[in-house]
């Protein structure tokens, strides 16, 4: 056994590229390996890991004249906030993390965020769109996602253009993220002069949506916008289909962007999702890969087309990498200064952080798109970018005809 291990070690050292790493850069985070956020959190973790392996294969992060190898330390947060702080403190104090990534979801990130302030570590937040966390007076948080209040802007723009008289039902999970999205959407709909006929939250553990769907029918709504995370959103989509709801447009948060959503089959058809990123977008990156390169490499490794959770994870890595290289140091304040100055385009889109004290770290450069599940000529389901129309890969199907 020992012999085998030894020979493996030798052969590994022989085949490894001849890079001498000065030291490790330790990045710490928790991820939802178990619990209700598992399906949403996994692609984000895969994005992180793809970035790490690519950076290390290419020689690590260059700080001054030294090459640093990226090392992750991660723990399972079980999708609940109760141990998040303990784990993040452990990452900082015992595992000596230099930098932090956020957990998945607004709720867990809100709990983790304070650690970055208490222990003076930069935290790149991804998979966490809710904006309130950034208004508490932080210095070291940097958000990768377009904030929640703008999430549904593209969907509402599309409705406004296609059918200004539509009756909109806002149906969303009673939780931090979805509620913030719904609040922003309602304001934006008011600004566009759209008619919101129903505005109602459901319990996060809801599995039976028929009471609420009956109310949607009663309200006479023609467009349904809302959802929350994967578990509730995919259930909602399935029941919309089973109850034969005659809606012209269905736009749900998060769930339709998770690759597993396609397992719903016909129920997935026509459902649209506000997305931080889609493989078809075409940005000319200032640094890092293009969207096509990222998609290809991700697919080669995980055998599935990446959604925006994966892209957000990967983009967090390259943004941090770029900032460290710019700063030429691992010092928190220097890297934070580089991030504050950043105004760059990546495969994931434009990245710029608010530097005001009142909302420091809020993402202000990035825009979202609207994607829709459509059928190709062979009847196979696939996601297409449908809004903004100029950036689209296919026209929005409106109304959905089943």
């Amino acid at each position, binding site marked *: 056994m020992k012999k085998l291990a030894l020979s493996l070690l030798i052969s590994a050292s022989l085949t490894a590229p001849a890079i001498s790493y000065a030291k490790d850069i330790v990045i710490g985070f928790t991820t939802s390996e*178990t*619990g*209700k956020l*598992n*399906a949403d959190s*996994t692609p984000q973790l895969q994005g992180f890991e793809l970035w790490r392996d690519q950076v290390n294969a290419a020689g690590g992060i260059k700080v001054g004249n030294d090459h640093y190898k990226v090392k992750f330390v991660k723990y399972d947060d079980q*999708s609940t906030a109760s141990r998040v702080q303990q784990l993040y403190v452990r990452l900082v104090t015992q595992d000596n993390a230099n930098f932090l990534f956020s957990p998945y979801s607004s709720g867990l990130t809100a709990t983790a965020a304070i650690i970055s302030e208490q222990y003076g570590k930069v935290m790149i937040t991804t998979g966490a769109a809710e904006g309130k966390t950034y208004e508490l007076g932080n210095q070291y948080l940097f958000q990768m996602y377009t904030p929640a209040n703008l999430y549904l802007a593209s969907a509402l723009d599309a409705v406004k253009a296609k059918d200004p008289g539509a009756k909109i039902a806002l149906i969303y999970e*009673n939780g931090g993220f979805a509620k913030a999205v719904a609040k922003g959407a309602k304001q934006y709909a008011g600004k566009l002069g759209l008619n919101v006929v129903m505005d*109602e*939250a*459901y*319990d996060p*553990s*809801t*599995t*039976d949506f*028929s*009471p*609420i769907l*009956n*109310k949607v*029918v*009663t309200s006479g709504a023609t467009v349904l916008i809302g959802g929350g995370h*994967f*578990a509730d959103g*995919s*259930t909602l989509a*399935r*029941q919309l289909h*089973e*109850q*034969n*709801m*005659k809606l012209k447009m269905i736009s749900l948060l998060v769930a339709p962007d998770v690759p*597993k959503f396609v*397992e*719903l*089959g016909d129920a997935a058809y026509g459902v649209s999702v506000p997305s931080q990123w889609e493989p078809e977008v075409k940005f000319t990156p200032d640094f890092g890969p293009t969207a096509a390169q990222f998609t290809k490499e991700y697919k080669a490794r995980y055998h599935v087309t990446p959604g925006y959770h994966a892209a957000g994870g990967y983009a967090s890595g390259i943004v941090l990498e770029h900032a460290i290289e710019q700063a030429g140091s691992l010092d928190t304040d220097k890297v934070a200064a580089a991030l504050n100055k950043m105004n760059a385009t990546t495969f994931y889109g434009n990245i710029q952080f608010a530097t005001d004290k009142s909302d420091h770290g809020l993402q202000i450069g990035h825009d979202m798109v609207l994607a829709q599940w459509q059928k190709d000529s062979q009847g196979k389901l696939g996601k297409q970018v449908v809004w903004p129309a100029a950036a689209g890969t296919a026209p929005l199907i409106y109304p959905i005809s089943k």
Partner: protein
Amino acid sequence: MIGILVSVINGLLLGSIYGLAAIGLTLIFGVMKVINLAHGAMIALGMFALYFLATSGGMNPYLALPLVAIGGFVGGVAVYWIGVHRVIGRAELMSLLATFAVSMIIIGLGTALWSTSPYNVQINIPGVAIGNYTIPGNHLVAAVIAILIAAALYLFLFYTRLGKAIRAVASNRQAAELMGIPSTRVLAIAFGIGIGIAAVAGALIATLFPFTILSGGGYELKSFVVTVLGGLGNPAGALLGGLLLGFIEGVVSPFVDVSWTPVIEFSLFVVILIAFPMGLFRVGRGK
């Protein structure tokens, strides 16, 4: 108006399944005074059993139900001998914790094996349209099956030797023992039946909604509410309690935001428990 009617029908359909799930819980409590905190985990195992029989095994989901029930029964008897037998007759804290420990083990294993991403059993049965509303076909079928199973259990308990033995042990174990009923074996069988019913209820729920290994928890809480409405330890009451809970959900939801439904449900639960500890369908006071 039609909206309220449809909402009530939906509630009753689902209520019959809540009722079935609760029968499993209340039967066990009635016979051995054990509140089975592994109830939710067993419901979840029933969901997965159906999933694997239907997808990997290629069976028709409804024909797979008897297999799920038998599997649940066998598993239940095993759990009885491993975890429950030694705590019968001891302080209720012990049986609560023993069954909770079983639940932790099942959920832990389930999480490691199947992760916690949702699973789906695909069933296409055309629904019934009422005006603009649709009542999904799978809900109708599931409700009918739930009521049939509940009726079969009732016949079993009242008209077979074994059923009568179970009821005898439930009402007085010592007396039953004196009458020559092997009470320990009866307890194990009753526990197995309770778990079998919970597993079938879980399988029926799996035909309606996506699920994970954690999904049982919500139905366990609902089962508590239902058992309290119907009277702890009273299987016939549990079905009525389930229908009542479904009716309440159906009537309430058109008028208040659905996120308030749990507040109403659980407040009602506490109040009824204090005011009518024997359930709504039986007169008298708890000890």
